[in-house]
């Protein structure tokens, strides 16, 4: 597609429920990144995919967080047993192999845990 697409754009969930966030990167972009944006915290790196593998998942906050990518394209970020501190905007970005292009970000999924 023309840009990075994320769904849903907004998600309200009850504490303890599981949620799945989806990211469709730009076609042909092999690298995909997940970040979390909280008020006053800036952008926090979560995980990086190159193709379907995740060489860097150092930013995942706990084992309740997991992510996968299939077909070198769509990625899903899953949060199990959500907690109120998980409330944030979850951003996805993609880039081509060439680092000179930087990232293209999606509009994010705003997650609210009540």
């Amino acid at each position, binding site marked *: 597609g023309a840009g990075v697409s994320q769904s849903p754009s907004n998600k309200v969930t009850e504490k303890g429920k599981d949620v799945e966030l989806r990211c469709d990167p730009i076609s042909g972009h092999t690298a995909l990144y997940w970040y979390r944006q909280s008020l*006053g915290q800036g952008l926090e*790196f979560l995980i990086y995919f190159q193709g379907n593998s995740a060489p860097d998942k150092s930013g995942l906050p706990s084992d309740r967080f997991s992510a996968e990518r299939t077909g070198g394209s769509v990625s899903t970020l899953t949060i199990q047993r959500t907690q109120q501190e998980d409330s944030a905007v979850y*951003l996805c970005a993609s880039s081509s192999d060439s*680092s000179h292009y930087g990232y293209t970000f999606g509009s994010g999924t705003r997650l609210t845990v009540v």
Partner: protein
Amino acid sequence: AQSVSQHNHHVILSEAASLELGCNYSYGGTVNLFWYVQYPGQHLQLLLKYFSGDPLVKGIKGFEAEFIKSKFSFNLRKPSVQWSDTAEYFCAVRSGATNKLIFGTGTLLAVQP
């Protein structure tokens, strides 16, 4: 660990004032440097980037940034701001050893007409 510091969390300027937003990073090797902007209700957009060559880089909308290696800095500047520059600005660094960008906490700029 790598880190990026943005010293100004909230800046308020009048239109036509000059802007300089500070950014310092902590990494001694080769780095790529970026400034991203997030306008109200919009997604993050690349403003400008530095990879090599001329340390003074020019970006969109009249913004520029200067890479000063000895100071580990990449400050963003604009000679005369407009109301439409109201946004949050993020500095980011990518080291040669990794593909991920490390972001600063952002600077919220409000330009008053």
